[in-house]
């Protein structure tokens, strides 16, 4: 460095000194600005990001099934995707046709049953007195009685309901469309993007891409399978006990089951709450059976299906889920675990290479 004065001569017993100059190339500023621009664009469209993430997650969950269909039946990818997505939609449609009319009928009965059950809860030990003193049954009855007025007087309420239903349909359509096109075209797009980069990076990108896909793909597929088992189990428990809206509670529980740690509680709590409308004994029976099922799921099904793909401590798991939920709601909680697993897999790979002194893949 010609423009720097030489380092001061070392004192007696001191080692010699040298300069370490830190400089920044102007193009680094351009790259930094590009990152800011991309960040701004992404934050502009949170709904797009959420729906796209859900679609890609669904595609990853269905991809092993598509691969299996291609291998076993010998179909081309487009035909296999049509078959799998068609089967998925047919199953969802059959569920809707069979379960929704019954659920709508039951929904009208729930309004009449809930205040009666809450009155019964006055007799419960410990909490019964608090329910009685705070007049919770009266409040619920008032809420149900005033619901038409609430809808009539608040101008935006009716519009809000219509809008949320419309938004829900748009979201379902969007997620399905992204999932179908990701299944059909995702691998080709990934290869095209990779081919733009210099060839010496390809082996490295392939390796880390496969690693990420293996972790997230298996997690998505395993979680999806367990969610279906959970939905079936909760629906069966609900139907056996005569719980109102049993099929819908099953779907609700299955969806929440995708969220690790807290999802099981959310599904079970709804089942128990609605079972209570049939009587206290039914509610307690639902709680007991659900707890037994949950133990079976946690200790038998889950370790077999996803145990080998995601090895994260429960504390790290719940912390990630809570942070994800705070940042991005349901979708954040859903994606927190696989992202953490990818991070861990990449770090393990890096650590292994460092320990073994392996060079970069070429």
């Amino acid at each position, binding site marked *: 460095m010609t423009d720097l004065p030489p380092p001061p001569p070392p004192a007696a*017993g001191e080692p010699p000194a*040298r300069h*370490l100059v830190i*400089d920044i190339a102007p193009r680094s*500023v351009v790259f930094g600005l590009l990152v800011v621009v991309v960040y701004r664009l992404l934050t502009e469209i949170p709904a797009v990001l959420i729906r*796209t993430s859900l679609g890609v997650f669904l595609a990853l969950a269905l991809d092993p099934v598509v691969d299996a269909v291609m291998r076993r039946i010998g179909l081309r990818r487009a035909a296999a995707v049509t078959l799998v997505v068609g089967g998925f939609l047919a199953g969802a449609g059959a569920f809707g046709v069979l379960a929704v009319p019954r659920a709508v009928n039951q929904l009208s009965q729930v309004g009449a049953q809930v205040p009666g059950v809450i009155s019964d809860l006055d007799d419960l030990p410990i909490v019964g007195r608090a329910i009685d003193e705070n007049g919770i049954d009266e409040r619920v009855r008032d809420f149900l009685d005033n619901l038409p007025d609430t809808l009539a007087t608040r101008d935006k309420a*009716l519009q809000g309901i219509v809008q949320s239903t419309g938004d829900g349909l748009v979201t379902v359509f969007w997620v*399905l469309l992204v999932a179908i096109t990701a299944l059909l075209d995702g691998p080709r797009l990934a290869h095209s993007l990779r081919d*733009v980069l210099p060839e010496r990076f390809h082996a490295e990108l392939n390796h880390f891409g496969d690693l990420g896909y293996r972790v997230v793909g298996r997690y998505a597929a395993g979680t999806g399978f367990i969610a279906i088992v959970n939905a079936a189990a909760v629906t069966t428990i609900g139907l056996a006990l005569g719980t109102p809206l049993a099929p819908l509670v099953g779907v609700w529980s299955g969806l929440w089951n995708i969220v690790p740690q807290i999802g099981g509680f959310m599904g079970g709590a709804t089942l128990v709450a609605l079972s209570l409308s049939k009587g206290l004994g039914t509610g307690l029976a639902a709680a007991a059976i659900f707890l037994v099922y949950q133990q079976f799921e946690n200790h038998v099904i889950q370790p077999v299906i996803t145990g080998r793909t995601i090895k994260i401590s429960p504390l790290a798991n719940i912390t990630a889920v809570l942070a994800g939920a705070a940042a991005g709601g349901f979708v954040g909680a859903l994606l927190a675990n696989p992202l953490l697993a990818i991070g861990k897999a990449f770090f393990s790979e890096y650590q292994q290479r460092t320990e073994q002194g392996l060079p970069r893949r070429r």
Partner: protein
Amino acid sequence: MQGNAERVIIVVRPRAILLVVALVLVALGFLVIAEAASEVAQRVLVAGVLACLLRPLTLRLARRMPLGVAAVLTVGVVLAGFALVTAVEIRDLVNETNRLKVDVPARIEELRLDLEPDHPVRRWIEESRVEPRVREWLGQLPARVVLGTDNPAEGASRVTGALLVTILTMFTITRGHQTVLGGLGLIGHQRLRGSVERIVRAAYQGGTSYTLRTLVLAVASGVVAGLAAQVLEVPAPSVLGLWAGMWSLIPVLGLVIGYLPVIGLAAAEQRSAGVTALAVLVVWLGLAALARRRWIARHGVDVSALLLTLSVMGGLHVGRATGAMVGVFLASAFGGALAEARRLNLTGELGRGLDELFTLPPAEPARPKPVLPPGQARAT
């Protein structure tokens, strides 16, 4: 300190500090401006895309007249076409809305009278004043469809925005080319500039060609749906045609969803009419798929269905029909750019440019040692 240890004095150059501060300030400034001017940025983007789409026709006209006149003529023709479509749509929509204004309240009243006096749905219809509200909503429908809002002030603002986009489009058609070339000239690295120029050209050509052909196919889909509705005596055929044409921009399922109202309304009138509408959809699906493969993909650019879906849905979310068109253009332009970048990478041109850009320049060369004559060196 141990025996062979070395002391390191860290020196941060003033230029590095200034650059970091500048980056932070520029990033903050960008975020503030982006927050305030996102609507303007959207209009500039729309104008840019429209200019790209209209430029081929303008250049053809410019062989016989000055470029500015050609640009005005092209934009004028497009505006006239848009006004014609809107006039037809409004006439159809107003007629159908008037019909619905009578039919829907009558159906609600019929439903109310069919129910028991204490039935919750009847109570809700009465207490929530569903019938007058629905009538009012239907009255606002034409304005909502044409202007996207039933608020007059907001509608006026949108008309002003459309005028701004028109003026910007004409400017971009006449001056956009030089502006892009000037921007590319700012890239100092010669090899990289050459690569970026080729990529930008491929993006423009691919995006324009693919989008124009896709729009032509969408218009054809809309015309087929409208004609089918007209022949099968389904209400509001032109509105249904417009609806089907817009949905056909969305890949994979868009065309099917766009035709569903035609099939549903035809089936509601007569079952055989529904079957005929379904048959029309199936035949048109086959023809549209053939056109995409033989005409669009071969003469335009091979666009990823996933990318197109994300882009069109994102565009619809941000800017409705115009946003969807911009989404098609951006996805196809990205497809064209990607294909060119892959070609350049195969020849090694892009890779070398990127390598030279990403690799830091070599440090100052070490001072050459003085070369001494052999005899002198030996003596030393």
